[in-house]
């Protein structure tokens, strides 16, 4: 019994520091502490066939045996040929510069006068050498020297800069982030050409050694938020860091809430906009999704398209989105509550026709709604896995077709099909996938509450949801700002109404940071 409870506790309560699994019995750390030498590297890495070792000699004052180590597929072999091997072996053979070389001065001389190439630096630790090779650089060892050269010549196959899949707009740039870190940082740099844009890199993941870059603008981002980001990233001790999802879960304030507390984006212009507002971005190598913190609820309902359209049009689209989110959450519940508890709201003629259409339907309103919505969820999930042309339509169309067939079979009433269609379409108005998922999840408890207690149930549910949202914080910022606590200026500037650019005299004050207390997670 106690072990069950303990297991339950481990699964549900998130400890401060998490180890997913212990590393295999083979401890890699000893190897990394050995002194730097080409021989050792060869021993460590020779077992994999994709690692290339090129021995060659430099004839200087002494004969220096050199070793070039790189990973085939990650390194740009052309650059290695052109800028390392060719100069060293061909161009400068017999050159008087070469005659000066000894093991002692070979590194300095190579860097300063012999080798071209932009990224060339000295290293003296085994760990650095292994990391460099595994990251796609080439490392050159010179004889028994305790130092080596790292030549940055990365070039692997990547997707390049393509149109982002998850966020598409009509009128704006179409560049999207890629899986390579450097490409992403370069895209961001092109948007913000200011020296205050900082990019601090760290490595996460015991086995994956994933590069992560934290980016922010020095005097715009609140220093407490920045330091909090670093603190939380530092607590992550996992072996695997395969994508942003892992980071999200580890650094969120409240992992139990269905609401996302970290925003993500695939577009450099969106990220640039957020960073300019004072947020902090987290770019992870290997995934085109970039995280930004802190995130508030109203952010998830805004789309960058709003900023590219005219102010009046943007107001309309935003209002529709908010309305859509509301309908997606509550439409089935209101239908259930009205038809089972509060029929007096329905005008008499409508009451008669609803009554007629529900003749012979074996299910109650609640069961009907649950059945239809579960079918809708299954179809939507299936639609995601199907190939592109079919997948996107099968969600709604499938639900409507099946709904129609069910009506003819006498299983559900036609009004239910309309409600379900409306709900599905309204949930597509929510631009952020995460928030859409949250709404889909919460819809079900609301329906059950409506089926049991009518409007009282819906009201209690809504208030509970409201209180929950009010207690949420994202990195110290209350989740529901600027609605509560009320920042009227920010509310008018960027929530339902977007102020035209010519009306904004100051930078929008969108973040409300209260002093976080030392050691406390989240609530300040």
């Amino acid at each position, binding site marked *: 019994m106690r072990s069950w409870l303990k297991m339950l506790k481990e699964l549900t309560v998130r400890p401060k520091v998490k180890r997913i699994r212990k590393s295999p019995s083979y401890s890699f750390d000893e190897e990394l502490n050995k002194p730097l030498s080409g021989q050792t590297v060869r021993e460590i890495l020779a077992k994999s066939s994709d690692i290339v070792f090129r021995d060659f000699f430099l004839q200087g004052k002494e004969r220096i045996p050199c070793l070039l180590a790189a990973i085939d597929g990650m390194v740009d072999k052309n650059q290695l040929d052109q800028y390392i091997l060719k100069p060293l072996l061909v161009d400068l053979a017999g050159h008087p510069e070469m005659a000066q070389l000894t093991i002692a001065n070979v590194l300095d001389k190579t860097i300063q006068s012999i080798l071209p190439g932009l990224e060339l630096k000295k290293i003296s630790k085994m760990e650095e050498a292994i990391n460099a090779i595994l990251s796609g650089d080439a490392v050159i060892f010179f004889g028994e020297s305790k130092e080596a050269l790292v030549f940055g010549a990365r070039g692997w196959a990547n997707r390049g800069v393509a149109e982002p899949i998850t966020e598409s707009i009509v009128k704006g740039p179409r560049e999207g982030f890629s899986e390579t870190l450097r490409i992403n940082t370069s895209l961001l740099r092109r948007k913000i050409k200011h020296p205050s844009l900082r990019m601090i890199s760290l490595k996460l993941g015991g086995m994956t050694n994933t590069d992560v870059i934290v980016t922010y603008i020095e005097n715009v981002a609140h220093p407490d938020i920045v330091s909090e980001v670093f603190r939380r990233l530092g607590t992550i001790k996992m072996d695997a860091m395969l994508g942003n999802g892992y980071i999200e879960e580890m650094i969120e304030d409240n992992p*139990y809430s269905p609401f996302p507390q970290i925003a993500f984006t695939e577009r450099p212009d969106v990220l640039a906009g957020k960073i300019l507002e004072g947020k902090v971005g987290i770019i992870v190598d290997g995934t085109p999704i970039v995280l930004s913190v802190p995130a508030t609820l109203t952010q998830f309902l805004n789309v960058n398209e709003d900023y590219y359209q005219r102010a009046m049009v943007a107001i309309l689209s935003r209002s529709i989105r908010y309305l859509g989110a509301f309908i997606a959450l509550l439409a089935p519940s209101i239908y259930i509550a009205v*038809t089972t508890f509060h029929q007096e709201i329905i005008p*008499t003629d409508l009451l008669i026709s609803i*009554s007629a259409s529900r*003749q012979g339907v074996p299910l109650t309103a609640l069961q009907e709604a649950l059945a239809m919505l579960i079918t809708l969820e299954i179809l939507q999930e299936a639609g995601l896995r199907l190939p592109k042309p079919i997948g996107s339509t099968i969600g709604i169309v499938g639900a409507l077709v099946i709904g129609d067939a069910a009506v003819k079979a006498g299983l559900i009433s036609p009004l239910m099909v309309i409600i379900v269609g409306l709900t599905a379409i309204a949930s597509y108005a929510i631009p952020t996938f995460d928030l859409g998922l949250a709404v889909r999840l919460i819809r079900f408890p609301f329906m059950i509450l409506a089926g*049991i207690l009518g409007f009282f149930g819906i009201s209690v549910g809504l208030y509970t949801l409201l209180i929950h949202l009010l207690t949420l914080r994202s990195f110290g910022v209350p989740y529901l700002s600027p609605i509560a606590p009320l920042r009227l200026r920010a509310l008018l500037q960027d929530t339902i109404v977007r102020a035209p650019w010519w009306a904004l005299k100051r930078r929008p004050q969108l973040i409300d940071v209260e002093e976080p207390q030392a050691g406390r997670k989240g*609530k300040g």
Partner: protein
Amino acid sequence: MKSIRPPKIGLVLTLIACSLLLTGCWGKREVEQLAPLIGLGFDLGQKPGSYLITEQFVRAKQGKEGVEVQDRTFTIEASSAREAYEMISKISSRIPFMGSLRVIVIGEDVAKAGINDMLDFAQRFSEFRRTMYLVIAKGKAQSILNLKLRNGLLPAMFIKNNLETGDTISTFPLVHLGHYLTTLDTKITAPIIPVIESIKPGEEGVEYKADGKDGAEIQLQGAAVFRGDHLADFLTDEETKGYMWLENNVVQRALNTAGSGESKVNFSGQVLNSTTKYKVSDQDGIVGLQYQIKASIAVDEVMGLKEQLSETGWVDLMSEAEKSFAKVIEKECQVSIQKERELGLDFLGIGRHIEEENPRYWKTIKDHWEDQIVNFPVSVNIELTIHHSGMSSGSPTTN
């Protein structure tokens, strides 16, 4: 304050959820289980102290072309509304639903006996609403609600529709339950409720082709005056129209000068808008009420015009028309005031007007107001303007 640790609140919520889900659902009724009540009728029962309650339900069916409405009307003799509810539930498989009730038809006989007791259910039970319409039926409510109308509608639906379009002719007051109760509470004004009756072909000057011997039509005309909650007397069509004028209830009205026998040329028109104001006048200690009616009219018909008129002639004709129309309105008002004096019942609300404007004087006369009504000075002053006379000025003439 610490925030609630997640496992604990999870436990609490689960407990609550279990207790809510596991014990049935209360007060939950599916739409198809309801029998919407659209009309309610009251008559006197044969046994003393009992009523004849007619309940008109609708049963909706999905027919081939759409929704078919089936009439389920029952008449029960019971001593209270709840007893009737019980007896009907024994017959019907559905739950009677009061929230859709729109019309209450009160039979003549029970109106004379007093209606407050029967209406108590309607104003107390939460499913009802105060905007339900009240009508008095000449004869028995049961027979009206059981009529098979030519237009296929159930009588209650028809009455409701007719009441709601009454603004266009403004010949009867639209009384809903709340208004009746508020008027009753003033203890000065006598409540007034519109009257319906069924007419056979040839009655009331209307001929129509009946479907067999059951076909009938229902007409809304006139009103009934109450003393407290007992029916006192009926008002004729003209008296009701006068009431409408004096109570500022006229929205649109069709006026007709033919029949006044005054001039050769007769006019008819539609009142576009009208306002009635009143003033409590005090002349040498004698307090009276002065009504001031301002109306504007558009002339729609000119009959009996035999010659072409010049422009000034036409203007003169129009002012003559104004005077004729004003005379018609005045007659209606006077007839109504006459009736009030005759009955000794203040359905025009004169006492209330005095209380509003001159409370001190009112206090002196309120105890014997009913006697005072007979002689109380009331004057009516009418100001009518003709806006226009339609698409043409003269009438087509033969010479």
